[in-house]
């Protein structure tokens, strides 16, 4: 993949918010991920060339941040809050149901490539614990039964790109 003229216009707009190219690194990689689902070796190289930075610098950032993905992810990324208030209010039951229903553990993607399951740090939704996020959508007071209906509702729909 190489950036199209249209891509570059969008990237230039992102770049304009920052003092220099390096400062735009995370926003550029977030855009790449938004477009492709994850940051492939090739797109990391493209982003580095666009910014005029060593690819290793971007790699250092991509592997530092929790939510920049260097491996392909499923159509839906499920982020389960594993922090303290959710833990107290039933996180473990929700996690176990997700593992059981999807047949995968944290950091894994289902065989049909529909779902990736990740633990995530406190989502700032503690008054609605336990909570989880599917792509950009927040779910409140999730129960094990609720997990089933969430999976049913999102399977085959939309996704984490675009």
């Amino acid at each position, binding site marked *: 993949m190489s950036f199209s003229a249209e891509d570059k216009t969008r990237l230039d707009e992102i770049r304009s918010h*920052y*003092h220099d190219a390096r400062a735009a690194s*995370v*926003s550029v990689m977030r855009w790449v991920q938004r477009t492709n689902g994850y940051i492939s070796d090739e797109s990391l190289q493209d982003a580095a060339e666009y910014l005029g930075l060593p690819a290793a610098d971007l790699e250092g950032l991509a592997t530092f941040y929790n939510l920049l993905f260097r491996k392909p992810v499923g159509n839906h990324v499920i982020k389960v809050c594993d922090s303290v208030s959710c833990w107290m209010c039933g996180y473990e039951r929700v996690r176990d149901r997700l593992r059981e229903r999807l047949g995968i553990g944290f950091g894994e993607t289902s065989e049909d490539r529909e779902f990736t399951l990740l633990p995530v740090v406190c989502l700032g939704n503690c008054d609605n614990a336990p909570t989880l996020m599917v792509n950009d959508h927040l779910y409140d007071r999730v129960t094990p039964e609720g997990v089933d209906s969430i999976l049913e509702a999102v399977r085959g729909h939309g996704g984490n790109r675009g």
Partner: protein
Amino acid sequence: MAEITPVLTRHIVEGNPPLDLAGYRAVGGYESLRVAVETMSPDEVREVVKESNLRGRGGAGFPTGVKWGFVPQGPDSPRPKYIIANGDEMEPGTFKDRLLIHGNPHQLIEAMIIAAWALQADVGYIFLRPEYEAGAHLLESAIEEAHAAGLLGDNVLESRWSFELHAHISAGRYICGEETALMNALEGRRPNPRSRPPYPAIAGLWGKPTIVQNIETLVCLPHIVANGAGWFRHLGLTEDSGTKLYCVSGMVEHPGNYELPIGVTLRELIYEHCGGMRDGRDFKAALPGGASTMFMSPDELDTPLDFTNLEKAGNRLGTAGVIVVDQDTSIVGMVLNLMHFFAQESCGWCTPCREGLPWIEDLLRDLVEGRGRKGDSRLLGHEMRMIGPNSFCALALGAEGPLLSALEKFPEEFEAYVTNVPDPTASIEAAPATVTEVGS
């Protein structure tokens, strides 16, 4: 019960879209900015903020006016100067800034411009965690509206001063909430904390004077300018100033955000505002200000939740993310969850934190999973006291709070997990001088 008209959350209705520029103006929005820019000098704004005794709501509680006093002023001061809103809200148990960002973005923008005027800053960034992306988009629209109305950009309100404001969405790491790590993050560098001095107010973002403030701290500003320092000081029930967003989670009947006069007691917060303990359970403990604060026990229910009184009690108000624990929740299990968080979110820069916190986590997991040994409590306390003071930033010191206070206030819960495995640390007492003084 302390009754109060909400100040910071007054125009926020959860579930409703936030006020647009016209709506915000209709309730008096941007009037404080006009008063500040048209009738007050930057010195005067800094002075009223200092007099108001506004203290940082992001965790450290540092007096805002004092911090602002370190920023070089005058025609020879370095430019550009930066103001940053810290919206990287990731302290477990904290969800107040989310409400302020999503609920009233124009209030935050007005606050940023007032702060920038006071500091004569040129550029501002609102730093947001990625899960608050919806809030970032609300802010971007509001910034556009403010630009079009001459409230941002060149010649703010037709003055000779210009200010640009941008929203930045991060990619998720707790350490980015530490102000020097945040500046590295904004520069596109690996977000490890920086050594201080130099302090950000002197040499921060790209080496220029920079002030980083928590979202809630900032949104107090329009109200202080509108109503005066004396008014703000009198809002508090104790010697501290203002209202406070207490975000209560855990085992209460009605968890949520409660904007109250600063200084309500833990008892009043739980039993009068949050409907008491969930299903009539018994109160066992609470962390008053997020994961990095110390456990409060039942005999501390009447402690006012403010900066001054909690400091006197050896604790901290932190973010006022009050996490309430009931009789049936295991303190050791909870501390294991917290230490897992700190170990995972260590940035890896310094050895005591990177290597020590996972060790603490392993010791706790051994306890919880039935491999606990006599002496583990002592070992946990001993190691934690070595890690905190010897690490580079405050992250591991934050981890110290819940662990050491749990060991002190709930020792029997740790002992209950101990099995008959022999104590491997029995020799520690024999040679105290070599091991206890390092971290003291």
